[in-house]
């Protein structure tokens, strides 16, 4: 196992390193006897039965709505009347709509800044928690996770209070150190940074996931590294990060998808309960515009086309992330 061979083995992740167990050394399986075949079939049926609730849920609540929305994206549909087939008109219109570019730009900006920041803060907190004792760690884990339980609508309203340019806590604290805080809730240049900072409110779930990964890094590796003379940063770079890289990758993927679909907090703060008439283009994220088209203007066909464009964008970006991950993510099971 790589985990017992110190720094050298951990960092040996070059091409071909993953082929050993899966490829050349595998023996062909012996032919199945009728009895074993029956047993395997029974096991397969049992397995399918066990996961059938999920399969049914997936088919009914995910796959079917997806297929149906693909169909609706080719129609002019307002929910109230029968859909009219319009071919690719919605997609053509979509590329001519300036608010699509605006909302996509806002969403991309948010994602590019929010995801790395979220991961860095979560990782930092997880490392701190990992240093803490068992009892205090449990307490702080709960403390960090509690904000995650706050309803997003409440977070949206909280954003308006905390980031109020005149009396908000954030600017008050900045004022203590001589900084005059910006108008976070109205200045278009500061609306998205404010929302990004506020999103860190919900960093707790990533902290817990990363902490679990950190706890799984064997101490022997650090001991070996220390004997080899490695310092904190070397240990972090050569042991910690490689060994938790699958978890970091998971957090990045999940948060990227969530960032592209961000809605609740910004909608509440700028388009919903927090402000019934005041809004700010800087907070018009793609899914908010999709919601407006679908449920305020009743352009459900157009909204469906928007949903499919977002799906394709997320798939493409996830695909790129997966490709990039092959270079940077270390999977223990892939090592010989």
């Amino acid at each position: 196992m790589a985990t017992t061979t110190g720094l050298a083995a951990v960092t040996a992740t070059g091409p071909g390193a993953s082929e050993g167990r899966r490829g050349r050394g595998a023996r062909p399986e012996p032919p199945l006897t009728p009895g074993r075949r029956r047993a395997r079939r029974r096991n397969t049926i049992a397995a399918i039965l066990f996961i059938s609730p999920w399969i049914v849920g997936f088919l009914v609540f995910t796959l079917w709505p997806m297929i149906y929305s693909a169909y609706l994206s080719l129609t002019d549909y307002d929910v109230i009347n029968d859909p009219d087939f319009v071919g690719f008109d919605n997609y053509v219109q979509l590329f001519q709509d300036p608010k699509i570019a605006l909302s996509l730009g806002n969403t991309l900006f948010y994602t590019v800044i929010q995801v790395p920041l979220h991961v860095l803060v979560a990782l930092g907190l997880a490392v701190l928690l990992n240093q803490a004792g068992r009892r205090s760690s449990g307490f702080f884990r709960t403390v960090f996770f509690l904000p995650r339980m706050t309803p997003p609508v409440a977070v949206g309203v909280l954003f308006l209070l905390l980031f109020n340019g005149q009396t908000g806590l954030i600017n008050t604290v900045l004022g203590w150190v001589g900084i005059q805080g910006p108008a976070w809730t109205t200045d278009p240049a500061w609306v998205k940074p404010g929302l990004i900072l506020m999103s860190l409110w919900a960093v707790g779930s990533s902290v817990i996931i990363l902490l679990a990964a950190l706890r799984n890094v064997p101490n022997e590796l650090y001991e070996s590294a220390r004997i080899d003379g490695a310092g904190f940063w070397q240990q972090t770079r050569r042991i910690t990060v490689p060994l938790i890289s699958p978890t970091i990758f998971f957090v990045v993927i999940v948060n990227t998808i969530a960032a592209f679909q961000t809605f609740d907090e910004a909608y509440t703060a700028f388009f919903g309960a927090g402000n019934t008439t005041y809004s700010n283009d800087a907070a018009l994220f793609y899914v908010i515009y999709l919601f407006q088209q679908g449920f305020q203007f009743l352009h459900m066909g157009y909204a469906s086309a928007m949903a499919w464009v977002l799906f394709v964008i997320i798939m493409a970006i996830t695909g790129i992330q997966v490709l990039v991950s092959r270079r940077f993510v270390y999977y223990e099971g892939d090592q010989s």
Partner: protein
Amino acid sequence: MKKHLAPWAVLAVAAALTLSSCATGTGSKGDADVTYDPNATLSGDLQVMGFGATDEIATTRLDRTEQALGDGVKVSLIEGDLDIQQFLSAVASGKPPELLYVDRNKLGSLAARGAIIPLDKCIEGEGIDTSQFVESALDQVTLDGTVYGIPEFNTVQLTMADKSLLDAAGLTIDDVNGSNWDAMAAANTALMKTDGGKLSVIGVDSKLPEFLPLWAKANGADLISADGKTAQLNSPEVVQALEYAVGIYDAQGGFSAVKAFRDSADFFGAGNQYATNQLGAMPMEQWYLNVLNDVSPEATVEFDTFRDTSGEPLAFSTGQAWAIPSGTKNPAAACRFAKTMTDVDSWVAAAQARVDARAADGKAFTGLLTANSAADAKVKELVTSSGDAKWDDGVAAMYEANDHTFSLPANPADQEFTTAWQDAVNRVLNGQADPQASLDQAQDEAQKALDKAWADLQGEG
């Protein structure tokens, strides 16, 4: 090859048939077979969406309405503000509620899509006297000459000012009621105060973006033509009105500063802006008078109507309406319900219940705007004096404003139209565009939406 294609072709056809048969709307299913008769005995279920019986005004009228419907009708309420998603889900499942309680400014879109039915037969059959309704309220529920809703409640704006601040600055409420824009701009700078570079007293809050229609009308302009077909968002008068109302904020350090300070106020509590002398004046809906009267009766507030530049009272009317969804099972009961909830006797009974409730708390009855002129006149007779002239003056101003209302007429793209002009104002407030350019953009967006919606509507017709 053809052999392989056949199953796929069958699958594709089956999928297409399944998909297209799934989305079957209830739109444009009218009430041709329904008989509306005020003497008919009714039965069946009556589900009302968007209405909550939360106070004596609602419960008193609801009790009377249930009596009028008879024991055969089982009324159920889906309480809370109308959730359009919930309504659409009900429509999509083929089970719309029998009656909708909806903001009047959303009625045009629903009517244009056939989501609600024309009420001509209902009005005629049940004998609803539409001449009693406030004209601006009736305009809001009339699309292309057809009435789609029975209006109720009228919201109007008043000028609400802090008398102590006015007195200290040597001003009167005439300086801040909109009748003289130069005087109002001067009063704004005289009333506003800063402390350590931060706003500590708002001079005048012009209440943008929501009151652009009011400022525009005060300047002699309508945002949309009377027939609801032509947007007029970039007319010189509207541009001038927006420039002026935004200028009120700019003179106080910009909208950001005013909004941040406004948002920090305890709007509904005893620490509101008037009780704490943090706001000189603003146009505001009449219900806020009741809030102030309840939470800070000693506040030095003064009321007047909002006025146009010739000094005439002016108010932008909004409110709710009852509408009957297409494809509903019990339109006859729905029509009787809407009629009884909005008739004069129901309003008077409800007002009397409010008078009694307020008297029990040792408080005055400050009136009620029903959107029914005949009911308003009778309810006004029930108004009791608070013993404090400022509140009585406020109630008088409210009734005066109610006689000088205008509204944006119903149109089939009302949501897109509203979003277009509100976004335009917000772009200016946020410093992203100047008024002319922003309203030009809004005009383009709104007119495109109107053209498409009217074309769709008339294509159906």
